C-alpha cells in the first residue's frame, strides 16, 4: 500500500467555499419548465426528409431479397436504402475489441442477427409517410439457427451469431491478483452465490434522435443528435470516409435523459450518409419500440458466480468473481463494461486477493451499450449478494459483517489487489449515518410489526462504491494492443472586453446540470458570483478535446480543466496587475476579481482596469503578453497515464464515492407484490457542488435501481422474439412504485480533485438493486424460503419461492 498522496489543496472545511455546496438554483431548469428545452425532435431545418425503418422479424435470418418497388411508388417517398448499398460506401462501426469478422453496421448486410434489427431505411417527406413506406418494403428472409441463452452461446456447438468469427465468445480474460492460495488457506469456509442480472437498460424518456445536414459547398456535415458519446464526431467521419474536420456535431442540443446509453453511432452514420447522398437534411427519431429493440441500447445481461472466502469470525480473505455477459448481436463498446469493475473489484472491503474471470458472448439479441455505471452496479449486486450469504452462513448481522471488513478511514489511499488505489472514504461513518437516519431500532420494529400482521417484511442493506472520473484504461485492459491512456476534458474561460465572464465547453448534457456546475466552479475559482458567468457550448469543430459526460467524470475532470483555465487566467491578471502596481508578479495575489499587493492589500487594481489593459492598452501590458483574457485548458483525468501492468494490475478511475442503502420491503404473501415502505441512503461524494443536483442524482439513480430490482427486463420468448415492445410491458417505475427516498450526505473530500469533489452521476443506482434484493431475501429467509438471486424479482418469483418451502420450513415463519 502506497501512502503517497498527490498534493492538491483541498478545502476540508466546507465553509471555506463561497459558492460550492451552497443551496442555489439550477440555471437549466427555467427553460424546461416553460417548454423551451431544445431537443433534437424539435429541430426541423427546412426541406427535412424523415427516415422510417424496416426491421427484421427474425432473430437470425439470411436476407434473400429486398423489394423496394411498392415503397418507392408511394407518393412522398423519395428513397429506400438497403444494407448492401450502405455497406459499399461506408466502413463498419467501431468495435473496441479485436474481432474483425464481427461487423456492425447501421443496416444489416446479408443476414440479420436479432429481431428488430434495421434492414432498410425509407426516406420520405414526413415521418408518417416514411413509416407507411417502410411497411411496403418486402424482404425475403431465410431463417437461420439462433441462440438466445448466453451459457448455450458459449458452448462449442452453439449456433454462431457471426459464423466467420468461428465462435460466439468475443472476449475472455482471466485475472489473479494477490496471494490467492495463502488467503484461501487462511479461510475457514467459502460461500458461493450465483446471481443473474437480467437484460434491462436505462430507457430514457426521449428516444434517440438525430438530424444531419450536408453542406456540399462548405464540405461540412452538421449533426444535431441526442448523444452522450465519446468520439462521436470521429466515428461518424470514419464510417462515412470523410475527414474528421468535415463533421460538426452541435452540442447545444438538450438530451432527454441518457444515463449512458445515448451513443447512436449507427443512427448518426445512417442519417449522415443519407444527408450526403440526397443533399437534404435528414431526420431520424426512433419510436419507442425501435428504441427498445432496434437502437442497440440494451444494457448488461449477466450471470455471476461469486465465491467469498472468510474466516470463522467473518473476515473476508479472498473473492472470486466469474461473470458471463451476453452482449447481444454486436458487442461494440460493451465488453469494456466487464473491465471497469476491476477498479472496485473488492467493493469497500479489505479483501487481500481476488480472482476475476470475465467472458463476453454474442447472442441473437439487440446489441448492448454502456449503461449507468458501466458494469459496476451488476457487479456490486453480485458482491453484496455474496456478503449477505456469508452473513446468513455465519449467523452474523449484515451491517456488522460489512463494518468488520470495511477499509478503514485511516487506510486511504488504499490500494486494492487489482492495483487501483481508492482515494478516500469513511465507510463506517457513512454506515453510521445511514443507521441514524433510518432510525434502525424503529425500522426493525416496523419490520416485526408487518411480520406479526401476517405479511412478509425484510430489511435490505447495501454498501457500494461508485468509481468516478472515468478514463478509458478499460480499453487497454480488454485489448492490450490498445494503448490509449488519456481521456481528457477541456474548457475555455473568456473575460471579454466588457469584463463579462463566459465559460465554453464542448459537451452535450442529458440532465446533469453541467451549466450550473461550470458556472459554480468558475465562480468559486475566480471569486465572482456564478450568476455572472455565462456558459455556452461550442460545437465539435470550434470546441476542444472532450470525452463527453460518461463515467461520473465531469465534476472531476472538467472541474480540473476549469481550475487549470482559471489559474492561468488569474496568473495573467496578476502579471498585468503587478506591472500596473509596479510590483513583481510574486508580490501580488489575485483575490475576488482584483489584484493586490501581498504585503499591503490596500494597494490594488480592480477588475475593470485589468480588463481594460488586457483588451485595449498594449502599452500597459507586460511585454510579450497576448492581448485579451482568454484561456483554454485541457486536463487529463487525475491519476491516469499508465497502462495495465504485465501482472494485470491497473489504476482505473481516480475517485470513489460511497453509498449505504437501507430499505424496508413489505411483501404481500398472497400476491408476491413488493412494496418498498422506507428507503434511506447515506451518500458520500466528497465536496458537493450543488446540493439539489446531487440529491436529485441520488434519488433518480435509486429509482432506476428500483426498476432493475423489481420491474424491468427485456424478455424474449423461445422463438427469439422480444416480449417487451412498449411501456405496457417494460415497466418503468412511476410515482406509485418509488417511495419517498431519504438521503443524507456525508463529505470525505477526494485528495485528487480541485475542491474535493467526486462523481455522482451513477449514485443510487450503484446500490439500490443490491439493497432491494437484500430486503426481499431477508423477508424470504425469515419465513424459511430460499433467497432469490435473479433480477428483476417478480411477484411470480416470490410466489414460487414461498411455495417451494417444505411444510417444516413454513412452520418457521
Amino acid at each position: 500500500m502506497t501512502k503517497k498522496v498527490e498534493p492538491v489543496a483541498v478545502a476540508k472545511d466546507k465553509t471555506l467555499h463561497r459558492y460550492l455546496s451552497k443551496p442555489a438554483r439550477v440555471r437549466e431548469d427555467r427553460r424546461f419548465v416553460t417548454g423551451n428545452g431544445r431537443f433534437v425532435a424539435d429541430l426541423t431545418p427546412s426541406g427535412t426528409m424523415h427516415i422510417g425503418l424496416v426491421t427484421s422479424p427474425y432473430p437470425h435470418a439470411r436476407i434473400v431479397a429486398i423489394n423496394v418497388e411498392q415503397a418507392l411508388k408511394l407518393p412522398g417517398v423519395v428513397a429506400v436504402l438497403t444494407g448492401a448499398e450502405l455497406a459499399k460506401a461506408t466502413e463498419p462501426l467501431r468495435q473496441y475489441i479485436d474481432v474483425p469478422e464481427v461487423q456492425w453496421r447501421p443496416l444489416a448486410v446479408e443476414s440479420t442477427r436479432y429481431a428488430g434489427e434495421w434492414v432498410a431505411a425509407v426516406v420520405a417527406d414526413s415521418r408518417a409517410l416514411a413509416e407507411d413506406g417502410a411497411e411496403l418494403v418486402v424482404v425475403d428472409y431465410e431463417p437461420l439457427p439462433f441462440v438466445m441463452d448466453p451459457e448455450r452461446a458459449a458452448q462449442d456447438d452453439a449456433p454462431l451469431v457471426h459464423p466467420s468469427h468461428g465462435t460466439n465468445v468475443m472476449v475472455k480474460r482471466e485475472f489473479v491478483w494477490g496471494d490467492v492460495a495463502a488467503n484461501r488457506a487462511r479461510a475457514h469456509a467459502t460461500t458461493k452465490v450465483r446471481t443473474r442480472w437480467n437484460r434491462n437498460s436505462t430507457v430514457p424518456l426521449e428516444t434517440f434522435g438525430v438530424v444531419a445536414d450536408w453542406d456540399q459547398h462548405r464540405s461540412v456535415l452538421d449533426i444535431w443528435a441526442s448523444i452522450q458519446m465519446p468520439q462521436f464526431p470521429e466515428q461518424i467521419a470514419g464510417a462515412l470516409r470523410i475527414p474528421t474536420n468535415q463533421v460538426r456535431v452541435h452540442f447545444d442540443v438538450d438530451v432527454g435523459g441518457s444515463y449512458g446509453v445515448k451513443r447512436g453511432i449507427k443512427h448518426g452514420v445512417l442519417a449522415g450518409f443519407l444527408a450526403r447522398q440526397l443533399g437534404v437534411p435528414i431526420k431520424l427519431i426512433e419510436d419507442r419500440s425501435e428504441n427498445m429493440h432496434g437502437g442497440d441500447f440494451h444494457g448488461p445481461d449477466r450471470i455471476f458466480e461469486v465465491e467469498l472466502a472468510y474466516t470463522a469470525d467473518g473476515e473476508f480473505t479472498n473473492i472470486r468473481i466469474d461473470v458471463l455477459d451476453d452482449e447481444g448481436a454486436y458487442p461494440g463498446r460493451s465488453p469494456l463494461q466487464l473491465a471497469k469493475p476491476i477498479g472496485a473489484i473488492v467493493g469497500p472491503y479489505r479483501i487481500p486477493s481476488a480472482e476475476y474471470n470475465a467472458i463476453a458472448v454474442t447472442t441473437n439479441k439487440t446489441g448492448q451499450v454502456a449503461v449507468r455505471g458501466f458494469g459496476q452496479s451488476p457487479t456490486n449486486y453480485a458482491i453484496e449478494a455474496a456478503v449477505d450469504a456469508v452473513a446468513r452462513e455465519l449467523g452474523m448481522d449484515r451491517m456488522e459483517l460489512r463494518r468488520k471488513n470495511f477499509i478503514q478511514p485511516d487506510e486511504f489511499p488504499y490500494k486494492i489487489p487489482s492495483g487501483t488505489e481508492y482515494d478516500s472514504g469513511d465507510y463506517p461513518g457513512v454506515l453510521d449515518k445511514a443507521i441514524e437516519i433510518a432510525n434502525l431500532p424503529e425500522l426493525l420494529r416496523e419490520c416485526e410489526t408487518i411480520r406479526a400482521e401476517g405479511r412478509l417484511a425484510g430489511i435490505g442493506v447495501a454498501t457500494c462504491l461508485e468509481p468516478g472520473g472515468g478514463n478509458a484504461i478499460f480499453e487497454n485492459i480488454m485489448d492490450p494492443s490498445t494503448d490509449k491512456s488519456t481521456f481528457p476534458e477541456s474548457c475555455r474561460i473568456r473575460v471579454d472586453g466588457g469584463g463579462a465572464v463566459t465559460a465554453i465547453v464542448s459537451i452535450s448534457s442529458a440532465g446533469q446540470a453541467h451549466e450550473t456546475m461550470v458556472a459554480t466552479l468558475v465562480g468559486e475559482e475566480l471569486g465572482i458570483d456564478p450568476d455572472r458567468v455565462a456558459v455556452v457550448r461550442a460545437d465539435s469543430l470550434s470546441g476542444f478535446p472532450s470525452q463527453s459526460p460518461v463515467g461520473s467524470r465531469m465534476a472531476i475532470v472538467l472541474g480540473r480543466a476549469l481550475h487549470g483555465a482559471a489559474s492561468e487566467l488569474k496568473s495573467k491578471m496578476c502579471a498585468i496587475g503587478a506591472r500596473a502596481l509596479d510590483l513583481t508578479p510574486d508580490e501580488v495575489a489575485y483575490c475576488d476579481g482584483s489584484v493586490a499587493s501581498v504585503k499591503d492589500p490596500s494597494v490594488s487594481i480592480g477588475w475593470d482596469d485589468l480588463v481594460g489593459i488586457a483588451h485595449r492598452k498594449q502599452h500597459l501590458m507586460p511585454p510579450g503578453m497576448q492581448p485579451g483574457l482568454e484561456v483554454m485548458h485541457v486536463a487529463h483525468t487525475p491519476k491516469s497515464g499508465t497502462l495495465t501492468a504485465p501482472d494485470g494490475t491497473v489504476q482505473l478511475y481516480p475517485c470513489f464515492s460511497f453509498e449505504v442503502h437501507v430499505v424496508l420491503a413489505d411483501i404481500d404473501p398472497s400476491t408476491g407484490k413488493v412494496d418498498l415502505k422506507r428507503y434511506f441512503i447515506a451518500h458520500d461524494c466528497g465536496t458537493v457542488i450543488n446540493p439539489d443536483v446531487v440529491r436529485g442524482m441520488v434519488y433518480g439513480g435509486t429509482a432506476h435501481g428500483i426498476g432493475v430490482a423489481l420491474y424491468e427486463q427485456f424478455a424474449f420468448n423461445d422463438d427469439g422474439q422480444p416480449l417487451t415492445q412498449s411501456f405496457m410491458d417494460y415497466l418503468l417505475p412511476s410515482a406509485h412504485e418509488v417511495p419517498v427516498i431519504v438521503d443524507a450526505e456525508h463529505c470525505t473530500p477526494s485528495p485528487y480533485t480541485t475542491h474535493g469533489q467526486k462523481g455522482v452521476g451513477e449514485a443510487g443506482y450503484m446500490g439500490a438493486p443490491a439493497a432491494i434484493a437484500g430486503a426481499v431475501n431477508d423477508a424470504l429467509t425469515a419465513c424459511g424460503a430460499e433467497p432469490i438471486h435473479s433480477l428483476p424479482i417478480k411477484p411470480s418469483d416470490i410466489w414460487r419461492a414461498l411455495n417451494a418451502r417444505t411444510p417444516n420450513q413454513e412452520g418457521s415463519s
Partner: protein
Amino acid sequence: MGSNHEVHIEVNGELRTCTTEARTSLADFLRDQLGLTGTHLGCEHGVCGACTVLLNGTPIRSCIMLAAQADGQSVTTIEGLSGPDGELNGVQEAFCKTHALQCGFCTPGMVLAVQALVDNVPEPTQQDIDDAIGGNICRCTGYVQIREAIELVLGDVAKVRTSDDATVGAR
C-alpha cells in the same frame, strides 16, 4: 393519407384554425403544425405522460388523441402557462425551487399534470397527489423533488398528509 379536416381549436387562449389530416395526433399537430414543441413524445402509445396537455382543463395524452377530435375545444400546452414576458407561474416556480427535474423531457407533462391537480382538486390528499402524477413517468428524478414542488405549491404540507401516515409518499 386519408381525409383532411379543418379544425378550430383554442390553443393557449388563442383560436387556431388549421387543416389537418384525419390521422394526425393532437401531439403531432401541436408540435409540427403549430410549432409548440414543448409538448414531448416519449412513447406515442399513451403510457408515459410526456405528451400531457390540458383539454378544457383536464390532463389528457395528446399522443393518443387525434387533432380532429379536439375540434371546438380548448387546449393548454406548457407554452400557455408562463406569463407574456416568460414569468413563471406558481407550479413552474415550485419546480425550479426544488429542482424537480433533470433532463426536462417529462417536465412539461409533469408540470401540466400538477397544474391540473392545483386547479381542480381543492384539498388534495396524498392519494390525490399520487394519482395526479402517477401516470407521468420521470426517469431522472425518482419523483422526490417533484413531490416537494407539489407540497410547495400547495402551500401547506400538513394538508396533504393523511392522518395515519407521517411520511409523505410512503404507502
